């Protein structure tokens, strides 16, 4: 009998513990992978310009000639501007579409077609028009980010339950009331879902521009390191780019947690 009552208490404790231990396991798995990488390279004697060790990669951050902080700041700025403007424009356009069916009919098919254009292929054109720099790379980032945000927001705004609209209409709710109380909050999970997709694309957008033509940023740094066969520095750049992507993604998730209660989120 006593074991029975104990076990239920243990279970609740075990649950809390398992979250902590899960984090430990996840971190451990990552560290084990790095260790495996390090050992493989050292044991098999792989040449550093083919595959550097993780330690060699981390050591690169001590070399000041790469100006890591500056170049990372440039890429981060491109991502922030491109992603930020894409969020504002994407959400605004989706709102305009939901307000004006005519506007949606005029513009939406064109946007769907534009979405089919491989945005990366526009890179050389954008750089030709705007010259290289933060502006052109932000524009490329924007072009990649805006569609997922626009399309998912648009879908979210149209997903309102018909019965809920009937309920609002039976109360003679005005259009803006329906929008403010039902449509917009209902669409927010979709907005964030689109922003999460865009967060991952944003890093790719910035880096493409820097690959094509640039004089700063982590993509520029990779091209420079490549020309001197400094593979470790290229890996170090990729690590920083990954961290930038994670940072944007986390920012979106944190914002989402502030705005949307648990059950209304789209995982």
């Amino acid at each position, binding site marked *: 009998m006593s074991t029975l009552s104990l076990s239920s208490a243990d279970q609740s404790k075990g649950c809390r513990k398992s979250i902590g231990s899960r984090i430990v396991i996840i971190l451990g798995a990552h560290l084990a992978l790095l260790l495996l990488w390090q050992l493989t390279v050292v044991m098999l004697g792989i040449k550093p310009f083919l595959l550097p060790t993780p330690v060699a990669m981390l050591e690169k951050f001590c070399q000041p000639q790469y100006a890591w902080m500056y170049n990372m700041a440039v890429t981060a700025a491109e991502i922030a501007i491109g992603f930020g403007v894409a969020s504002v424009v994407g959400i605004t356009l989706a709102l305009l579409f939901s307000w004006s069916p005519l506007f949606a009919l005029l513009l939406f098919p064109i946007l769907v077609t534009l979405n089919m254009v491989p945005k990366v292929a526009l890179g050389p054109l954008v750089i030709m028009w705007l010259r290289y720099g933060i502006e052109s790379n932000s524009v490329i980032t924007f072009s990649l980010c805006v569609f997922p945000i626009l399309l998912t927001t648009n879908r979210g705004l149209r997903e309102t*339950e018909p*019965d*809920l609209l*009937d*309920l*609002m*209409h*039976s*109360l*003679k*709710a005005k259009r803006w*009331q329906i929008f403010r*109380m*039902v449509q917009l*909050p*209902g669409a*927010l999970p979709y907005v964030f879902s689109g922003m999460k997709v865009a967060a991952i694309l944003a890093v790719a957008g910035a880096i493409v521009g820097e690959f094509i033509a640039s004089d700063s940023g982590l993509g520029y740094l990779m091209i420079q390191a490549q020309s001197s066969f400094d593979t470790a520095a290229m890996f170090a750049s990729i690590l920083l780019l990954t961290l930038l992507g994670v940072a944007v993604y986390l920012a979106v998730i944190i914002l989402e947690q502030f705005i*949307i*209660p*648990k*059950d*209304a989120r789209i995982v």
Partner: protein
Amino acid sequence: MNKVAYRTGDAGDAEIKLRGFVMNADRSPSDPSPSGLATSAAAPVIRLTNLCKVFGTKANSHLAVSNVSMDIHEGDFVSLVGPSGCGKTTILKILAGLYGVDEGMLSLRADFQSDMAKHHVGMVFQQPLLLKWRTILENVMLPADVLGLPRRPAQKRARYLLEMVGLSGSEAKYPYELSGGMQQRAAIARALLHDPKLLLMDEPFGALDALTRERVNLEMLRIWHETGKTIIFVTHSIQEALFLGSKCAVLTSGPARMADFFAIPLPYPRALEVKTTEVFGELTKRTYHLLGMK
């Protein structure tokens, strides 16, 4: 298309002939209403006369509702029962002012109409349709937000209603923390917040399991008794229609028309045992028969 939508004035001046086979609930020998408000002498608050509604284009139209005539008195609990496609929901939406009518007449007693203009109607659907991002209290407050009612008294009323439907203590919870039955009670509280005289319910308990449904049915009778609302209740279930209603309209599909409208001569308060009585059995048999089921 609306030849006659709402006709104001006293529907009691019965100048409209009801079709012969429509059994007028007025003439029912017993008065099943518990509130005492609805007496057969008083004029009906809503009178539907040969109501007809067609959907679709001229070339490709289908009859959603036809031949619907009924008098609804204040405090009535009218069950609309029938298969899918018989027009139950359409009638509800016409009463909610969401649809116009194509033929026939919907007339409201003058005082009821002015009250409808002020307090609108309360609606409950098969799904609770609570807003996920609002707490239960905020959800119940939704009509107050839409209608711009003063917040303080509305909040007080919301708390009172939540207590009445047995949800006190859940005010600060989010919908996902409540079971389906509890969510539906919150939806009922929301429908009552702005104190509408008319409560329209569209298969509100259709998504609940059988036992929860019986329990909520009993709750529903209590809520009706406490509020004295006029309720129009759409259901698939003959048992539910007969157990709850003071009057019952049987609707058939293909073509959609009203087969009968009758008073349910079972006294209130009703307990679940009512379902085992002879009268209940007779009514059930009759309804099955009307629906063409043996």
